[in-house]
């Protein structure tokens, strides 16, 4: 397999592995936990590194996961005191833990290969050079194998506990009442987020893990209503961001991880604008249609109220609408045009009058009101 293909494969596996727990973070409004955890794993990595002296030891992953769980536990402790809100607790805990990590590196790691740049930013381009061999046989790049294992763990966990995860995501109180131990499941999920973040930080760095965990599920959230479709769509969006990111980075000769995050952002932005029903464009269109519908109703009711009365001469004029209903000129002409098209009114010069259909529509609208 060529290096280019291997990098893309790693990128896709990383993106998919991150998207899976990300779905539940987004649904449970804990997206920022991924940010906190991905930073707070630093001291765990550093301490495990000091003990084992080896960055590729599996202890590093365990140390980092412990760091992640420590964050979750500390945030929970602070929140339970009632003295701090959850967001403030997160905002205080992870910078403190991250600082401990940075200071430990500066104090003791010296010139060992453990710099914060690598932890924060990652470098996917070098991933194919670090390979695992067993008995002389090349098993593939380390990052691919490690992430592959974590992916399998995530898939198994989510399939086995699908019902429970669904329940705690949508109705935590009910989950508790039914005896599903939401707190335990919460910690297991956070443990998975930590392990995933550790596995991914090597390849994409800790800050961009957040992009891969949050952006694809949030995009899917705009497109779907079911949990299963949301997971599938998130995975697809994650994979597409990974491959597209690789090629953008290749073209610009820039950071692959950064480009993957950027592409997930581009996809999010496109979906944000274009998503049917929930996208900005369709929300805007719906609002404008509702305004126009309301405008038509107001217009026919106004004409109906003054119809056949002495003041009709000046009340039922185009320019009067702007004074009486406080419509701006553009909206008034839109409402008139739309009412003409619907055959509700007739126009003779500046004068407006109701048609029979318009009269009926006015009467039924008044009943509605």
């Amino acid at each position: 397999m060529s290096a280019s293909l291997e990098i893309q494969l790693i990128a896709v596996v990383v993106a998919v592995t991150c998207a899976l727990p990300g779905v539940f973070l987004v649904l449970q409004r804990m997206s920022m936990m991924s940010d906190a955890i991905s930073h707070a794993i630093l001291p765990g990595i550093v301490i495990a590194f000091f003990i084992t002296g080896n960055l590729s030891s599996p202890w590093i992953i365990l140390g980092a996961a412990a760091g992640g769980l420590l964050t979750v536990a500390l945030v929970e402790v602070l929140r339970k005191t009632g003295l701090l809100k959850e967001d403030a607790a997160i905002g205080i805990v992870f910078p403190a833990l991250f600082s401990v990590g940075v200071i430990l590196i500066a104090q003791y790691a010296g010139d060992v290969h453990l710099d914060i740049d690598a932890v924060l930013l990652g470098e996917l381009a070098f991933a194919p050079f670090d390979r695992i061999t067993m008995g002389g046989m090349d098993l593939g790049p380390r990052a691919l194998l490690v992430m592959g294992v974590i992916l399998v763990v995530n898939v198994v966990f989510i399939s086995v506990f699908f019902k429970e995860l669904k329940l705690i995501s949508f109705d935590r109180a009910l989950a508790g009442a039914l005896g599903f131990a939401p707190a335990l499941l919460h910690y297991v999920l956070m443990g998975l987020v930590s392990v995933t973040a550790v596995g991914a930080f090597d390849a994409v760095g800790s800050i961009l893990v957040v992009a891969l965990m949050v952006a694809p599920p949030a995009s899917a959230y705009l497109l779907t209503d079911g949990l299963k479709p949301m997971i599938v769509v998130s995975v697809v969006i994650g994979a597409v961001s990974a491959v597209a990111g690789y090629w953008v980075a290749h073209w610009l000769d820039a950071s692959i991880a950064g480009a993957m995050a950027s592409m997930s952002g581009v996809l999010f932005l496109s979906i944000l604008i274009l998503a049917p029903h929930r996208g900005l464009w369709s929300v805007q269109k719906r609002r404008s249609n509702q305004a126009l519908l309301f405008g038509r109703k107001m217009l026919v009711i106004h004409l109906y109220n003054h119809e056949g009365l002495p003041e009709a001469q000046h009340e039922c004029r185009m320019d009067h609408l702007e004074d009486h209903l406080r419509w701006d000129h553009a909206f008034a002409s839109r409402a008139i045009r739309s009412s003409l098209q619907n055959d509700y009114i007739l126009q003779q010069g500046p004068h407006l009058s109701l048609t029979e259909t318009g009269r009926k529509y006015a009467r039924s609208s008044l009943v509605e009101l």
Partner: protein
Amino acid sequence: MIDLLTNLFSDYTLRTVALGSALLGITAGSLGGFALLRRQSLLGDAISHAALPGIAIAFLLTGSKAPLVLILGAGIAGWIGAALISVVTTQTRIKYDSALGIMLSVFFGFGLVLLTYIQRQPDANQAGLNSFLFGQAAALIEQDVFLIFVIGSVVILLIALFWKEFKLLSFDSDFLGTLGYPIRTLDYLLTTLFVVAIVIGLQTVGVVLMSAMIIAPAAAARQWTDRLGLMIFLAGIFGAFSGVGGALTSSLIPALPTGPTIVLIVSAIVLISLLFAPNRGLVFRRVRDWQAGKRLRVDAVLVDLYTLASQHSSAEYPHSERVLDVMSSISGPAHQTLKVLKDLDLAIPIDSTHWSLTPEGVLRAERVIERQFGGDS
């Protein structure tokens, strides 16, 4: 200690770094108060990360590394990030936390693409851009401090000018709206001040730790007072103190980076405040709970004794401690509480295990019952 103070006034670098960090602490801390109350504690984190592409673009466009140029770029990018968060959360069903996470990481990723792109340009002298990631307080020079001072003063002046509006915005923005104030505009103004305070701090403490500079001093100050003015003032003091403390500590210990040291000091202040602040602090609360528990136990045993006495001919009739142990609605042996009652002259021991009420005890027990059951009995 004397050496340290002499150094602070004589060593140029140390003085510059300490002054810069102090000014930054004051500015960030004061704004943090509003962020804390508005539950926007993590907005600072998002803005500081979102600023990165602005720094890269400012450099790409101008080729200059002048702090003002880079700060301007950072500010514009951070502001766009904040505005997008607001649009996404108000117009779609994406929640606040997801919006923060996306803007934070996507902007940062984009900034990273630009930075690596710049680094691979053969002629670019890009050194120094990286310092924004982790901050390099030690590299602060007098001009930087002057810039922080000017911008910080403007921020604090604006807070003072819009004090009433910002206060209402933080506590009851709907009410502010009904009074006819433009909520949206004020919200954007406060967010803009936020962005400004963050970007001037990036150079000192860096992207990752800037959010702690905003939120931690305010979270600590919140524990000491219930008044907004005092809280903001205290937050400023805590911010300044950790800035100076971090600068001094890191100057004393070799290879101790300033930014993380500042953050650890401010985190320690938070911890101390959570534990020891009067009224809200955990220790204070524990003591208060313990005292309340003691008072409740005294009342309960008193009422139990009274109940027993009322079933016998006289108040002096001795009652066994064993009976009191099991009858009290408050669990646990009654012995300690009986000793307290004796000290208060409300009960007297007849022998080693039997007790009876004093006349004062009877009166007091009646008052307790009156209070507990109101007018019913």
